[in-house]
């Protein structure tokens, strides 16, 4: 059942190549970095158990698992390990990174207002660019539910947005 050495090397290469992207995705799905690392760890652990099956797309598998863990995190809180003592990520050593941290903080703030399913729907539709049908399939819900979750989610984000940003973001109506 375990992985042999070659498989472990493949797995390591996969994490090196796709890990940052997957963490970024996880980071959008759940409220903070510690939790993002924890859900990603849970998803990758699960992947190790299926690695020998040569999945067509391990990345898709991890993304689906992340979505499943994230969408129910509110009502099934214990499914997601509580934040542990992870370091708080890289230090803002360059101006780029510092800007990024500011953006991250605002993004966290805006998305924090959303209940899990709305949050996941907004992330998949708006930030990940999935279609309504793709989102519905991934979430195991109807297209109607995707529409309403997206609309209610964006309403909530708009409520917490600074009115100034809304104006400068160019509402031409």
């Amino acid at each position, binding site marked *: 059942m*375990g992985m042999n050495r070659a498989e472990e090397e493949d797995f390591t290469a996969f994490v090196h190549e796709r890990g*940052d992207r997957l963490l970024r995705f996880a980071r959008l799905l759940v409220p903070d970095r510690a939790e993002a690392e924890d859900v990603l760890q849970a998803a990758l652990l699960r992947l190790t158990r299926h690695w020998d099956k040569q999945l067509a797309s391990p990345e898709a598998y991890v993304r689906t698992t992340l979505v499943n*863990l994230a969408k129910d995190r509110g009502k099934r809180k214990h499914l*997601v390990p509580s934040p542990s003592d992870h370091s708080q990520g890289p230090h803002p050593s360059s101006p780029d*990174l510092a800007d*990024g*941290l500011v953006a991250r903080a605002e993004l966290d703030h805006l998305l924090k207002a959303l209940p899990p399913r709305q949050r996941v729907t907004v992330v998949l539709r*708006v930030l990940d660019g999935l279609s309504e049908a793709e989102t519905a399939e991934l979430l195991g819900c109807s297209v109607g539910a995707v529409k309403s979750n997206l*609309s209610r989610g964006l309403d909530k984000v708009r409520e917490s947005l600074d009115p100034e940003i809304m104006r400068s973001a160019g509402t031409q109506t």
Partner: protein
Amino acid sequence: MSQIMQPHDAVAEHLRTLAVAAAPCAELRLHYADEVLALARRRRWIWRAAIGTGSCVVVAAGFAAALPSGGDYFAMYQPSGSMSPTVEAGEQVVFGKNLPVARGDVVAVSGLPGIDMSIIRRVIGMPGDIVSCPADESGKCDAVEVNGRAMSESYVVPDREPFAEVTVPAGDVYLLGDARRAAIDSRDFGPVSLNSVYGVGVEVIDVHGESRPIPGTPEHAPPTGQIDPADDPPPAGSVTGPAMPGQADD
């Protein structure tokens, strides 16, 4: 983009801008893959040792006691009300280690993502089955359907909350707790690999040590030979504790 209302477009655009700017801040630690692999090895070892401990609280205590031993059967405490009324919290289930899994079986499962303990659930869907709980006109669901046929489950506390159709992938099973309203199961974590099923339940042992068959399962011969004992029962407080909140008690 389609004709979403204009303000929504602006909100969406703003979110996208932020996400692009924030992206460089999410980088994995250098040896993250190694950490995961080390954890996987450790879990696999624990799995092999068939730690059937009922509660996170006793994982540490049970560690030494639950090293693999000889019998074909093992007992495990049910730590929560999620299989009530079939198996009440504090009762034990005797599992066969080498029995084939069939629909209706009550099984011991470990290694689920995010759940650091073994749990007991019922197999509702086998690989290839289509499982759903369709809503009627009142928006409620009276019976779980498998491949379009309603199951008669006299042993469950029904939930009546509908859930969407799921096709169980090859190599997986769909699990539900008998306390439908309270249980955390495949409705939450999806179908589960057969690899994580490590025991098939053959009987329940109540708190007085009396055994009884498990309702709703395929017929199983009573256990023979040595039964590996369960770890210590979970401490009283943890039985209805935070791990499985909101038990349905009627």
